[in-house]
């Protein structure tokens, strides 16, 4: 399935409220731009003709400075543009806080492909299926260089960094197939690292999920990895070693030995598995070995999903206080 191909596209389709509002913002800002620039262009042209050398024109009362005028044309355009600063900032703020009831999809980027994984474990390459009308959070990470997930129909993008989760969220409202791109230059086949975003009616999305094969839900995959890597030996409470329980951990503040707290989000759990010695937890000795090199990003996402499933303390995950 490919997006409708026009011979000449002049404006991108918008598939979410955010996209429509971004367009309005751009229209408004363009109008202000015209208001500020057209008079300059006209003035320069008219002055150049009217006051051209040799033409008799009224040139007396020439001023070389006028403080009031200068301050006003310095400040009035600035204050007018601040309206758009505020509008853009407010939208950006909304973009930074995903609603609590969102569907979580993970993305792993590597040279030069995208792998998306749904909560039920369904995985897809360079294609992303999402339901319309429901908020979707994409948590992403790169296995090599910096990439960026760019969804122009939704007017959003986010860099995908190695070793660090970033996320974006959206609520699409117009079913259809749109393009997705990598927008951060990442090497030889950068321009081919893209695919399609398919927005589906919720029922169709459910059918698609059921049709797609899966090795088991992310939580189940995570549970298996949790046993396979021996995490359960300490963290399930039955063993000899006193390790913190993971029940109710996700989203809760963790007291650190050095004082202060950290919120246990996706990134925190990932860091603790790979580099447990960093940010030591208050009341525990540092015994856990690092799993660096033993767990790849795909398995890590399953493990994090599993830890998340053990209960979450905060009412809305993904929201940073």
């Amino acid at each position, binding site marked *: 399935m490919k997006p409708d191909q026009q011979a000449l596209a002049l404006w991108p389709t918008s598939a979410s409220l955010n996209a429509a509002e971004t367009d309005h913002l751009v229209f408004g*800002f363009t109008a202000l731009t015209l208001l500020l620039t057209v008079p300059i*262009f006209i003035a320069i042209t008219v002055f150049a003709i009217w*006051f*051209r*050398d040799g033409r008799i024109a009224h040139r007396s009362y020439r001023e070389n400075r006028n403080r009031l*005028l200068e301050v006003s044309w310095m400040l009035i355009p600035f204050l007018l543009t601040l309206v758009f600063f505020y509008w853009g900032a407010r939208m950006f703020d909304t*973009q930074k806080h995903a609603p609590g009831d969102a569907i979580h999809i993970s993305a792993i980027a590597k040279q030069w492909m995208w792998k998306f994984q749904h909560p039920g474990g369904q995985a897809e390459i360079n294609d992303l299926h999402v339901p319309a009308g429901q908020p979707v959070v994409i948590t992403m990470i790169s296995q090599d260089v910096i990439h960026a997930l760019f969804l122009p129909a939704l007017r959003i993008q*986010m860099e995908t960094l190695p070793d660090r989760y970033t996320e974006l969220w959206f609520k699409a409202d117009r079913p259809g197939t749109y393009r997705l791109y990598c*927008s951060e230059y990442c090497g030889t086949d950068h*321009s081919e690292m893209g695919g399609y975003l398919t927005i589906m009616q919720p029922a169709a999305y459910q059918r698609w999920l059921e049709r797609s094969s899966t090795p088991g839900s992310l939580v189940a995959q995570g549970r298996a990895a949790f046993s396979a890597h021996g995490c359960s030996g300490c963290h399930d409470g039955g063993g000899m070693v006193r390790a913190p329980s993971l029940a109710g951990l996700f989203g809760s503040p963790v007291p650190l030995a050095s004082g202060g707290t950290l919120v246990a989000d996706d990134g925190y759990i990932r860091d603790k598995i790979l580099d447990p010695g960093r940010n030591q937890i208050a009341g525990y000795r540092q015994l856990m070995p690092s799993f660096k090199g033993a767990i790849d990003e795909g398995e890590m996402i399953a493990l994090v999903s599993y830890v998340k499933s053990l209960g979450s303390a905060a009412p809305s995950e993904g929201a940073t206080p």
Partner: protein
Amino acid sequence: MSLSESLLHRDPAPGRGTIGRPPDYLHDEHTLRSWFFSIDHKRIGILYLLSITFFFVLGSIAAGLIRLSLVVPNGAIFSNDTYNKLFTIHGVVMVWFFLIPSIPTTFGNFLLPIMIGARDVAFPRLNRLSWYIFVCGALFTLFTIVVGGVDTGWTFYAPFSTTFSNTWVIPALLGVIVVGFSSILTGLNFVVTLHTMRAPGMTWFRLPIFCWTMYATSLIFLLATPVITIALLLLVLERAFGIGIFDPALGGDPVLFEHLFWFYSHPAVYIMVLPGMGVISEIVPAFAQKKLFGYRFVAYASLGLASLTFFVWGHHMFVNGQSEVASLSFSLLSFAVAVPSAVKVYNWTATIYKGSIKLDTPMLYAMGYIGLFVLGGLTGLFLATLAIDEHVHDTYFVVAHFHYIMVGGTALAFLGGLHYWWPKFTGRMYPEGWGRVSAFFIFIGFNTTFFPQFLLGYLGMPRRYHTYPPEFQLLNILSSAGSLILALGYIFPMIYLVWSLRYGKRAPANPWHARGLEWMTTSPPPKHNFETPPTVDFEPYDYRDRESRV
């Protein structure tokens, strides 16, 4: 009659062979040695002019090949790797070897001492050294990126540049690092020159605005260049010795590189923009025969821009997971940059009002500059708007925006200044008709090339794409067609300016009836700039005698 008036009202004949007058700087000595070992700021300026023209031609050829490739959406003309190397050549050469040195090292070197009534810059030997450093570093990098090839883009983002690229990254970086020292030396030289070498009577507020912008630019050279030197050196250390600084696999942080890179590279934009503003501030009063409107505001705005530019680097990072508070602050600070920029544009417009306008070639460039710079600047505010940047970040919208600033701004100002001061540099007039025709070609060609790229970017075409969806092809063809017109606009001046060296009319000392010390000496100036050291007893842009011509 004061000295300045007596200088002004005399129209000395060109230097060669006139009895009782020393030969001009061009005819002082003719050996190659007298050029390559010269410590005369004018000769060094001309050496720089030749060098950066060479790099501009190479960078333009790479740009032409990029536009050629983008005529077809499937990238059939080059391989992906070749395309990536081409845009790296274009970016590295144009940014580091043309735009950054362009106006300061050519017009700055040639004119700054003359404009303040000095015999030379404060450290003439350091000035010569800076040219050698520039040429050695730039040619070294040029060799590696053309013969070996580098595919990182001019931004050298880690960990791609340190761990994943299989190209000649280290030598390319070393050359760029070396060139940075030439910038630092030039900046140092200009700051000291402006502080210590001004002629008697040349107070700070009698300096032409060009000198103020050179001062502001030099401060950025001095304060920002060391940061990029260190950042690029850290890349070399990581790539060569595996010292973990930016690559997370080695324990580093790639976002740190983005911060270090833009902490220099955003101020670098003003290294390119401020000198252009300086040139326009000279041309507009000369061709309006009217004092520059709001001199002090324009002077302070230059320093304001040079300061503000150090606090906005984070607007390149709205979509990299930077904290929300940081993004909001950088967005607001970036909007504040509009204040000093608006001062300049409105004050130029007010200067034209009630002037006696001559639409000669330099003025055509200046008017084109104002239009394109305004569009480039305001689309910059679009990019500073958080919600818009989330969409157009790293798309062709950004490419169009910065080309409006750097080609529409800096390159047009450079060409305008080159025509304006050409009689002073060479003692010859260029053919005015050809000058106007090329200015027209450049304006039309530039807009045809880059305006469609705003649309492409908003449609979602990412930058640095060798292949692209077919629905973007028509706009890309339009853009490539525009680049042909633009190329003609660049080729004409190269021909007629060289032609004028031999066949051009001999230039009088002051062909534009302009004010400023550079017009009070012969064209071309004598070796020591003035026959008698000048004393300044007049205000800048002192065009009031025209006021009587109502």
